[in-house]
């Protein structure tokens, strides 16, 4: 039980408290200033450096991956362009080829048709000529058999047959 009510006002231990405060505080100060604080500062500094380095490294990797992606996209784009170019080229070539073939075919067929037509025409005229002769011969034969040889009849017959055949 204290007599004063407030032990804080009891001067008996003031000297002791100040004495031990000085001792403990000086020990604390020396240890902190000499060892602990430089060490903490060093640790924090080192960590900051490590983190900064790691961040930088990550940044570099990111850039690298971005450029790789860019290159990848670029090459895909180039490949696509090349492919469409090839496609277009070959289509053109094919079209050209088809057209050429077509033309050749048309030309050949036209020539063939021409040839056949002239041949036909020739054959037709030959046939006509022959048929005129045949008709004349047959009619002449019939007439001569019926009416006997008669040069006058022969001439008119010839004219008649010719006009008939022509028609």
């Amino acid at each position, binding site marked *: 039980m*204290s007599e004063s009510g*407030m032990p*804080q006002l009891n001067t008996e231990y003031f000297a002791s408290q100040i004495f031990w*405060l000085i001792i403990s505080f000086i020990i604390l100060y020396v240890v*902190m200033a000499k060892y602990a604080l430089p060490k903490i500062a060093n*640790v924090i500094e*080192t*960590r900051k450096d490590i983190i900064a380095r790691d961040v930088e490294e990550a940044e570099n990797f990111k850039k690298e991956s971005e450029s790789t992606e860019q290159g990848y996209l670029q090459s895909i784009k180039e490949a696509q362009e090349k492919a469409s170019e090839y496609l277009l080229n070959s289509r053109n070539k094919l079209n050209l080829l088809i057209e050429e073939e077509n033309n050749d075919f048309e030309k050949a067929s036209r020539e063939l048709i021409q040839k056949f037509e002239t041949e036909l025409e020739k054959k037709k005229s030959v046939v006509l000529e022959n048929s005129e002769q045949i008709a004349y011969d047959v009619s002449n034969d019939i007439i001569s058999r019926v009416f006997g040889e008669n040069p006058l009849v022969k001439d008119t017959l010839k004219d008649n047959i010719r006009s008939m055949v022509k028609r």
Partner: protein
Amino acid sequence: MAEKSGAPDPMHQFEIVELIEFKAFDLNLSFTNSSLFMVFSVALIILLTLFTFNGRGTVPTRLQSIAELSYEFVGKMVRDNVGDEGQRYFPFIFCLFMFVLFCNMLGMIPYTFTVTSHIIVTFALAIVIFFGVTVIGFVMHGINFLKFFVPSGVPKALLPLLVVIEVISYLTRPVSLSVRLFANMMAGHTMLKVFGFFVAGMFFSGNLFIAPLGVAPLLFITAFTGLEILVAFLQAYVFAILTCIYLNDAIHMH
């Protein structure tokens, strides 16, 4: 409040008890319970800041984190309030903050002794700060430091009065600094003790109506303990930041 002999005394917790007797130069320098907790605080701070650092891993351990956070907390406090010239005094401010904080916090554990609840301890710290800051002021500015007490831009007639007021306010700094910390710690601990007595007294009163009501002071004391832990931190912070502000006054003169 004493109704019978041996009644609980809330001030009993502040009593100094001699542990190891030691006398020198006619002074009683005995190692007391107060000394024990000072040494204990210092030992804990040294343990925390020196022996929690195992290796230099990028990821700190928990205790290491506490040490680093304290370091950066005080470092920021000094930088913000004093600036680059204050870096020289950073170790002192750090020790001051940690010492007061640990003394306050250890005092929150039941049956411990609160070093900072004694005016002589806080006053000793404050007077050292006061003289230190004043010496720094005179060393940095010479006799010009006296201009610190002359406010600028006031009528000449008022000047003598204002200088007196400034000097008084300057001289009362150690008193306000030490009394603030001491009174906060003492008042809080006394309050806790008084309400602790209420709880015990009501629970063991033998009265069926009063005993359950003891829950009320128990709830209060629970919440108040949380508040006291906040105050323990806050007062250490205030003590350190006021030291920074005084230091800044001495270095930059407003």
